[in-house]
């Protein structure tokens, strides 16, 4: 029994000769909201399909709840709720009947249907055929279906796709509340860093099939080192002056950048500049945003 709810080792999936997922070691601890992040086509959905037993790994192993998915797939799936890509539904049935069709398979109590309907606020529309639902409503029905069996692990692939802003906020609050209230572990994939940033406690970043970062979100934030930007009247001369005082800085146009420096050092630099009669227009801190780090890691400039 390992400490992880999900643990994959060298998980690999080949389509033809292309490795869509390449040696991924996913590690998700109990009670975490694990943000699975990557640009479109990085292999997120393929990984998730393998986690759910919909696709077969070419190589590597998957353990969920400490059980091997190859051997104990059904007992694992009983405790997993999922929503993969777009929501699944039977258009000719009502929302209630859709949930009933799944409830029978999960052996959940009938009362659970009303509970999940109220969680996703579809109680009013429960008796309407799903084919008339908007994408947002179908998405919410998909979440309701995923919650139906009181899962211990929830795997949501791009759950905010197609939702309007208020729907996204609602979904986010719902997802954030679940680990606290029910002790559910959540894996949520997205290509939007901002979304993961607002929910996740752990992050895994995948690019071109490879895991390039996996740690807590605070570790990722630590990478967002700050720089101090000084705007002065004669940047080049000022830069030389600072160099002669023994301060290495970078100069770009009228700005001088000082990296990773203590308050004292900044004070000394400013003092030196003032003493040499430079006019200092601005002293600002420039933080590298998570977005920048993400792009840096995935090596895709403006690709999103």
């Amino acid at each position, binding site marked *: 029994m390992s400490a992880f709810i999900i643990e994959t080792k060298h998980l690999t999936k080949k389509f033809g000769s292309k490795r869509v997922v390449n040696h991924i070691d996913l590690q998700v601890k109990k009670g975490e909201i694990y943000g699975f992040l990557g640009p479109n086509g990085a292999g997120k959905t393929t990984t998730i399909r393998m986690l759910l*037993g919909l696709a077969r790994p070419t190589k590597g192993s998957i353990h969920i709840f400490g059980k091997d998915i190859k051997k104990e797939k059904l007992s694992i799936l009983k405790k997993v709720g999922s929503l*993969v*890509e777009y929501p699944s539904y039977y258009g000719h049935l009502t929302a209630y009947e859709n949930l009933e069709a799944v409830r*029978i*398979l999960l052996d959940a109590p009938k009362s659970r249907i009303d509970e999940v309907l109220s969680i996703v606020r579809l109680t009013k529309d429960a008796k309407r055929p*799903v084919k008339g639902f908007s994408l947002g409503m179908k998405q919410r029905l998909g979440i309701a279906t995923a919650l139906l069996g009181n899962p211990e692990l929830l795997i949501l692939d791009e759950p905010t796709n197609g939702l309007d802003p208020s729907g996204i906020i609602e979904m986010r609050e719902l997802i954030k509340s679940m680990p606290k209230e029910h002790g559910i572990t959540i894996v949520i994939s997205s290509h939007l860093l901002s979304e993961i940033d607002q929910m996740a406690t752990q992050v895994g970043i995948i690019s071109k099939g490879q895991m390039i970062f996996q740690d807590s979100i605070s570790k990722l934030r630590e990478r967002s080192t700050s720089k101090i930007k000084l705007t002065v009247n004669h940047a080049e001369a000022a830069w030389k002056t600072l160099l002669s005082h023994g301060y290495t800085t970078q100069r770009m146009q009228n700005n001088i950048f000082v990296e990773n420096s203590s308050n004292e050092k900044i004070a000394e630099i400013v003092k030196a500049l003032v003493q040499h009669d430079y006019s200092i227009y601005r002293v600002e801190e420039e933080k590298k945003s998570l977005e920048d780090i993400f792009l840096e890691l995935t090596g895709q400039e403006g690709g999103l």
Partner: protein
Amino acid sequence: MRKLFQSEFLKLRKSAIWLLIFVSPILSLLLGLGAGTMTDLGEQQWIETLGMMTISHAILFLPLLTGVFSSFICRYEHVGGGWKQLLTMPVSRKNVYIVKVLIVSFLIGLTQLLFVSGLFLIGWLKGFSTDLPWEVIATSVLGGWIACLPLIALQMFVSIAWSSFAAPLAVNVIFTIPNMLIVNSEKFGPYYPWAQPFLLMMPSTGESFGALNVSATTLIIVVFGSLILFLGSGLGYFIRKEI
């Protein structure tokens, strides 16, 4: 397994598919009613009528219905992404497949029951005087149903493999049309899956079985052989299929 049946029936209940089980029996009923006016039925009145009704029902409708039902029972899974949802439930793929095949078999079975009720209705309306040839009728109806099983297995395979609703149906129609000729061929008839419902359903009067004097044993072996082949390959495909 029981849970899968319940869930599957819930999905079916609200659809129009039920109406299709009536089409062929009603048509056969009309044909059967007309039968007596054309020829004198004589001693074999039950069997003659049954034979008359069987022609369109078994040559055309039974093979077509196996395709329609199979396509239909897969359609709602293809359309709304149902496979994905169904297969992330704690159910084995083998059972999912078998339940789907059994439900189509059940629908075909209901069609057969309606068909035979039609025959009884005709007999009652026309006041047939001879005794009911129970054995012949039961063999015919049951034989027709059994002969549909390999077809169902085959059609289920095609319907699962192709997400389109029309494509499996088109293939089925293409293979059903030549039936008219093939049932008359002694060489190919017994081995052509689409011809088997007719060959097993057509009542006989003499020693031989079926319209072509092919022995019942041969037919049964062919039917069960192909059933095992089609069911096995379809099941193997479905278990490996990546959703």
